[in-house]
């Protein structure tokens, strides 16, 4: 998924203005000015460079731009989310817990996963109501404005509407079988194959 890799455009050509006359390879704070092709804007930040020459390629820790609304998603949170989403078979961001959902849409998604017979031990759930930073950050992380949100095997699947849609059309079951998240013996798809 593209959101897990930093686009090349985040590596910017920075023009550094040396405020202190530094020797080459001397580390020191500089005010750097960069032009980002991604945001088509200027990027000002204080940074450390290891060259006294004017042009340096530097990786920006975080984009700063009026277009970029990444206010609520910190790098630390993004990293935690990246890890969780990659490590766990199913990740569910919801309001409340599977045992006591605090929102009808979250409840519906839990019920769908239950009906499909997914083992809840394999589902990592996050209660966004317990963590304000997560509650705002996850919307930006997934570029999805609402909770609940479901990830399966590192891929964003969608919210309640999409889950319900896929559940009804049989697509969800196909996906879960493909990712071996539900018991193959119970699935009608496999019993068809056995008959053949």
């Amino acid at each position, binding site marked *: 998924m593209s959101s897990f890799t930093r686009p090349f455009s985040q590596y910017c050509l920075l023009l550094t203005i040396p405020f202190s006359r530094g020797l080459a390879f001397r580390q020191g704070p500089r005010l750097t000015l960069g032009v980002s092709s991604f945001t088509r804007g200027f990027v000002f930040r204080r940074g450390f460079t290891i060259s006294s020459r004017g042009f340096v390629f530097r990786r920006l820790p975080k984009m700063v731009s009026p277009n970029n609304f990444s206010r609520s998603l910190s790098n630390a949170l993004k990293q935690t989310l990246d890890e969780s989403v990659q490590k766990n078979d199913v990740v569910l961001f919801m309001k409340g817990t599977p045992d006591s959902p605090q*929102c*009808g*849409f979250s409840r519906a998604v839990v019920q769908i996963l239950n009906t499909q017979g997914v083992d809840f031990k394999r589902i990592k759930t996050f209660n966004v109501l317990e963590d304000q930073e997560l509650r705002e950050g996850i919307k930006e992380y997934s*570029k*999805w*404005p*609402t909770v609940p949100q479901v990830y399966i095997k590192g891929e*964003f*699947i*969608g*919210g*309640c*509407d*999409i889950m319900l*849609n*896929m559940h009804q059309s049989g697509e969800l079951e196909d996906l879960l079988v493909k990712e071996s998240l539900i018991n193959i013996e119970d699935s009608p798809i496999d019993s068809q194959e056995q008959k053949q």
Partner: protein
Amino acid sequence: MSGISKELLEQTLRKKLEAEYVEVVDTSGGCGQSYDVIIVSKIFEGKSVLQKHQLVNETCKSEIAQLHAFSQKSYTPAQWEAQKQKQTS
């Protein structure tokens, strides 16, 4: 979090998504933060469900941000016709 009016949401969807048909149902019971929406537009042609939803979410980001719940069904004109047929039969 103040919510937005049904009319404003309908207008926005029509304008930004070039929708031929929009049906907005206020499910909030008055607070203006919860809507069920049906959108029919040509721009959904050839897109998966997730892509359609993402398109809607992206174009109406500022409006949806003010809501608690936003449930959408998005169809291309052809899909919408088929859906109507199914319902009447």
